[in-house]
């Protein structure tokens, strides 16, 4: 049992403890931890949980008790999205957090697939940070989240452009 996952009187832990994305083959594609855990503990948790979920049958319930946490998960095509929340937390709203995140990825990449997340993993993290912060929903409006990401992309292009120009004239 991991001490950090249990409720400690003196400290309040986030409702969402972590979020994992993994493939049907059990490959981890994204991991976001909202509690401080050592690298070793993270690896152990991911390994155990991925196995547990992959062993479940398709029509089963999206929620399960795992250690002292509640796991909410859903499969989209070849990817499993999985959140660990506290026992008392609202399971259905967590399920829809997953769905909204999928929608955001889908809108940003245009019909997202696993490869998009592999090759643009940093974007998947940026989008997640705009949507969830510290394990809590920060901005639930799809429009606003995408606006923030697109603005950042614009900044990126502006920043990129002069580089190549300068490079061309050999000023770097």
């Amino acid at each position, binding site marked *: 049992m991991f001490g950090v996952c249990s409720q400690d009187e003196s*400290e*309040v832990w*986030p409702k969402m403890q972590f979020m994992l994305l993994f493939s049907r083959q059990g490959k*981890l594609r994204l*991991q976001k931890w*909202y509690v*401080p855990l050592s*690298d070793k503990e993270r*690896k152990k948790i991911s390994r155990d949980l991925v196995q547990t979920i992959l062993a479940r*049958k398709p*029509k*089963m*319930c999206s*929620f399960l*008790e795992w250690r*002292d946490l509640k796991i909410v998960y859903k499969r989209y095509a070849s990817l499993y999205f999985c959140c660990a929340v506290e*026992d008392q937390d*609202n*399971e*259905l*709203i967590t*399920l*829809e*957090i997953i*769905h*909204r995140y999928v929608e955001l990825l889908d809108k*940003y990449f*245009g019909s997202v697939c696993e*490869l*998009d997340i*592999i*090759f*643009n*993993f*940093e*974007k998947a993290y940026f989008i997640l*940070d705009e949507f969830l*912060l*510290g*394990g*809590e*929903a*920060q*901005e*639930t*409006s*799809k*429009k*606003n989240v995408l606006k*923030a990401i697109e*603005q*950042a*992309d614009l*900044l*990126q*292009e502006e*920043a*990129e452009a002069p*580089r190549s120009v300068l490079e061309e004239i050999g000023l*770097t």
Partner: protein
Amino acid sequence: MPAVSKGDGMRGLAVFISDIRNCKSKEAEIKRINKELANIRSKFKGDKALDGYSKKKYVCKLLFIFLLGHDIDFGHMEAVNLLSSNKYTEKQIGYLFISVLVNSNSDLIRLINNAIKNDLGSRNPTFMNLALHCIANVGSREMAEAFASEIPRILVAGDTMDSVKQSAALCLLRLYRSSPDLVPMGDWTARVVHLLNDQHLGVVTAATSLITTLAQKNPDDFKTSISLAVARLSRIVTSASIDLQDYTYYFVAAPWLSVKLLRLLQCYPPPEDAALRGRLTECLETILNKAQEPPKSKKVQHSNGKNAVLFEAISLIIHHDSEPTLLVRACNQLGQFLQHRETNLRYLALESMCTLASSEFSHEAVKTHMETVINALKTERDVSVRQRAVDLLYAMCDRSNAKQIVAEMLSYLETADYSIREEIVLKVAILAEKYAVDYTWYVDTILNLIRIAGDYVSEEVWYRVIQIVINRDDVQGYAAKTVFEALQAPACHENLVKVGGYILGEFGNLIAGDSRSSPLVQFNLLHSKFHLCSVPTRALLLSAYIKFINLFPEVKATIQDVLRSDSQLRNADVELQQRAVEYLRLSCVASTDILATVLEEMPPFPERESSILAKLKRKKGPGHLPDINNTRRNVNGSSDHTETNEVTNQDSTPSFTDLLNLNSSPSTGASLLVDAFSSSSTPASIDVNEENFSRFVCKNNGVLYENHLLQVGLRSEYRQNLGRMYVFYGNKTSAQFPSFSTSLNVHNKAVDPIIDGGAQVQQILNIECVSDFTDAPILNIQFRYGGTLQNIAVKLPVMLNKFFQPTEMTSQDFFQRWKQLGAPQQEVQKIFKAKNPMDKEVTKAKIVGFGVALLEGVDPNPENFVGAGIIHTKSTQVGCLLRLEPNTQAQMYRLTLRTSRDTVSQRLCGLLSEQF
């Protein structure tokens, strides 16, 4: 390129990722990664300064490698450099690397904090957001120290952009969760509450999470949030679905915000103000009504969003537990979900109903769904749903339906998933005991448990059945008959042999009149199992045999032959051999009278909390288990509450397991006989109780210790270095406590050896303070109750400050002496948080109670307290000055003590600082 690449393309990165994906084996992948790591290392070490783009690309590659599960031990410095780039994209990758790969390297933390500080002050909202996200992602103590006071300012500043406010609110929340002591409450708290009124729903959403967490810990400071939250919720639930534009999710108005607001309201009792209360009730009714409306969309997201709000509303209704109509409506709604085609909803309905079952208003309504739940137990295909059904049956069980529920659980146990069998066994055992009207049913149920799931029946369960049979003579004959019959089965579980051996050893005589269960038949039956059993069970059976010799003299010769056989007397196991030798000898030398005394029937066990209930609580954790004793108010009448009071004192008495000690293995060694009749069953070390110790720092009289048997009261007086303490021992039971004795690790007068039921005896202790000291004396109390030796150790509240003589002095004298005691080791200072409300009069009383004179008008600041006194010991006197400075705004105190002796300063400071 297989993937879209918006904005920039880091081509090198894409190529590298492709290479990794093309690796055919783990070894090839590792080889490719090592090659890349070597390349990056050489680039970072190279003479040529890397441009920002290359740095970004390599840092990103390192990040990718780390996320694949490999260790990364360099690149942190380059990532930190990226933070101060003025190109957004480089900064962003730098922050991502830091967020994912935080290192507690203190040099780096300083650099990282510097970069964050710059970005926070940049007034560029995108940079500020990156910095805030990074703080929230890392959330370390160092970051809390650096930014916890800055972020509230950003959050409530008038000119802060909405998106920055959102990030700041959740960033602060994360810091408060990891280091609450570093987040100062202050003026900003009131302004944060008003964010609930903000026009931007995203700001409200983020702020509600922050307010909820703060309100959990400081409910009084955030009371004003109740009315604002109700108003906001009311506007959302009554809005048309298009009103909230993009915050409408599949025709559901702002489901996330609604859930958060309902969660915030669960930090408080129902609003006292009638109008506000009415408005909230209206909201809850509207939410319940909407559940009955036809769906506006067939999409599962629509129903999930709607039901997420509904379930949270039901949680609030259960939390308030005050509106019977709402509770019953909630229950009916959940009843509909029990038969819903969505597995998720059935799961949640079962879970939510569990808490409804514990309310007196809805317990009966929940019971009406029993058949559906039993059906779920039989037909659900998902074990996690079946588990919820078991939990609900357990929660809805009472005297009226116990027999049916226990029977259903038993039949489910035959096919239950292995992962949940032990828990079901515990639940069945608890229900059977709790709702047993006649104990024959109880005995049958437990034997069935052993038959069906013997491997999952823990020691606590079979210890408990023996305890109950021994304590109730009306069931002993039945129990003997039933175990005798159960043992007839050709293959029976070893746990049954244990129970059977114990019960026949005690009560076999009750069925010996029947020739079919004559003494010899009983013995042969037990002995036929002997060779298949483990050592602890065999040891138990040997004890049963010697008890048979006492009960049935006619089988004495047969049993002596068995004991005398080589397989017993020369058994390789030392415990078995010893028992065989001793029992054989005992049966030969002892007269019938002595034998009858030694092997007398077990005396009744003292009643206390069922050890199985304790085990289930341990297993599930206190929050998970609806406590069928405590939480259901009034439904079962007061008779059900008798067991619960004793829970807290479990630690101070030997546990039931120690008492029975049937499962003795060679290492524990003790035999049944020894357990029952000697006083050596005392555990080797008992915890010293010091629960009430600190209460006596500032006072001299009161209750020092109390459990369900005994109360220890104190009255004490001190004068200079001498003290006298009167200790009162009160017997709370109706039985006599024989062999009562106390001992102290210092000298004391003897106390009466017997305390009659309900009586009180007094003991006087004379105390002399020889020199200054830290450790308090331990008082050990021993007595017998119900055949067990009780052992209690309590720390006696004799502290150094008891030997204070208060000293009055003028302001001038005080400061002169204060300066004289200025050496560093003479002063001890402590800053600590107030544990109690900061009341001036209470504080004064405590300081006077501590023993010093309270000096008025000495400190220039009238809020501060100063005191002076002299500690008297036999050999010396130690002058002492103290100053206590409260800070009501921060809810903190600073305590300073100056005495001529450092050990005295430390001890006094330690004692006094615990009092506020």
